[in-house]
């Protein structure tokens, strides 16, 4: 495609303007974090602080239980991602490779499970966990987050396995490999990019949860996840915006990094799962 100079200029200007608008809230978060309280309560707002206070990050890290919150989020995310991946890899593979009776309706069920409102599921889960005396325990999160992850992960993985030719396993089986061996030694290594993308997606899903954490862990501050902890910093009337923003940066950065590194895989998984 050829463009005139003015057309190119227009295109670049539009792109830059759009990007600026879209990314502005993220920029604003950083700016708010490093602004002084005095600057934040002044109008017009300053778009770059006159004296950036970088030490806010170390101060919030030390004064607020940010490391503990992040650790809890990490435990919940790793735990639920691991649990869901184990069952989803097998299920996704079975749905991709075998024509199973009920397999189709199971696939359909998995798709509809995405429609379940967490606010509905949280009610019976709360009843069950309370009955088991588990309220306040990290296990509630690991189990509950799996309700979010398994439908997504199974579907994403089925999509990945569908793209891997069956001939590979058939060749391995001719060479004396068992069907399970063919899956573990031949298919899974090839599917590594898909597997890691799904696992990271699972991690992101768990990391973003607020509803379950708030319901099961609100009375157990030692187990608060980052999202739950952050909301307690938002006061009814007064909020220290620079402190909460600095804390928010700590919570957002891990997922933003995951996204930037694995955008291609995440996007691939997202669209592969939905284009069906």
């Amino acid at each position, binding site marked *: 495609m050829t463009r005139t100079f003015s057309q190119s200029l227009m295109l*670049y200007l*539009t*792109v830059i303007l*759009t990007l600026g608008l*879209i990314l502005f*809230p*993220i920029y*604003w*978060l950083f700016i*708010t974090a490093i602004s002084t309280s005095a600057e934040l309560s002044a109008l017009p*707002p300053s778009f770059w602080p006159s004296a950036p206070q970088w030490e806010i990050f170390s101060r919030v890290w030390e004064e607020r239980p940010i490391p503990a919150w992040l650790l809890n989020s990490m435990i919940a995310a790793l735990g639920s991602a691991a*649990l869901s991946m184990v*069952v*989803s890899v097998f*299920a996704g593979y*079975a749905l991709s490779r*075998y*024509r*199973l009776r009920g*397999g189709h309706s199971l696939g359909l069920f*998995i798709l509809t499970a995405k429609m*379940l*409102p*967490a*606010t*509905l*599921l949280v*009610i*019976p*889960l*709360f*009843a*069950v966990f309370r*009955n088991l005396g588990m309220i306040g325990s990290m296990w509630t999160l690991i189990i509950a987050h*799996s*309700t979010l992850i*398994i439908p997504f992960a*199974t579907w994403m993985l089925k999509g990945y396995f569908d793209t891997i030719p069956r001939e590979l396993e058939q060749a391995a*089986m001719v060479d004396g490999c*068992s*069907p*399970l061996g063919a899956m573990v030694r031949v298919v899974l290594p090839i599917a590594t990019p898909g597997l890691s993308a799904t696992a990271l997606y699972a991690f992101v899903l768990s990391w973003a949860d*607020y*509803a379950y954490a708030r*319901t099961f862990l609100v009375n157990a501050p030692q187990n608060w996840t980052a*999202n739950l902890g*952050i*909301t307690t910093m*938002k006061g009814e009337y007064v*909020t220290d*915006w620079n402190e*909460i*923003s600095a804390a*928010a940066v700590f*919570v957002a950065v891990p997922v933003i990094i995951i996204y930037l590194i694995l*955008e291609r895989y995440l996007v691939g998984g*997202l*669209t592969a799962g*939905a*284009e069906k």
Partner: protein
Amino acid sequence: MPNAKMFDLARPSRQHLLGYILLAPAVLLVGFIIVYPLAIAIDLSFQQVRIPRMGTRGAFTLANYQRLFASSEFWMACWVTLKLVTVVTIGSLFVGMSTALLVNNRFRGRTLARLGMALPWAVPEVIAVVIFAWIFDSSFGLMSWLFVVTGLSDTMIPWTSSPAAAFWAVALTMVWKGFPFVSIMVLAGLQSIPADFYNAAKVDGASALQRFRWITLPLLMPVLGVTLVLVILWVFRDFSIIKVLTEGGPLKTTQTLSIMTYDQAFGLHNFGYASAVGVLTLVISVVASIFMLGRGTKAIY
């Protein structure tokens, strides 16, 4: 998987058995963490319980549903949900489509632009709310200031505590969080359209607008249909954005069905009633998506 060793799974007649064995853990887990709780919720919705105790069961009653249909709060929540779904879906679709079409152009730095366009998708919802709660702050928020500076308003607007404005604060936050998904999906759809189609149309003298209307849009329809349903369901289900930004207030003007379900259960301890709201929300979203996907597929063929 110790069972696997007991059979000769390579035998064609046993092949399916392995499939079922591989599927079993997922089926069991999904049964325990999704199907069983769902059954409990439906069961609860037909009992008058405030706080559920397992093992004991109240008498079967339709009272929750009767109370629900007679309550203005429920219809208000339905209306708010419908409004929010409409506004956020249209907003996300518009922004998502435009950004996707924009970065589908060939230019230097396109990869970087794509990465940036979809970045809000990676920001956790609670963090997005922290950002927008500050932008919509009533005393020193950027949005109010912009409204005053541009003359749209004489005084600072208390966004999240004004019944008229809170809805728009929630909607804007959701669009910012929701459009990247549309953008990603549309971009994937655009790239699956063969360039030959456009070249052929150009040879035939079709204008850019005609090419969009008669090639891009029809070929994008399947992707767009699925995307639309997923966005709608996301707005339906969403809890954290509304809960943290406005708590469903002021005066329940941002209370969607999802928020009402939660508040009835964990705020007012009406678990039976809350389950009834939740079950109805689920029914509405299932019916709506079947209807939409049905229409969507008809539109394709």
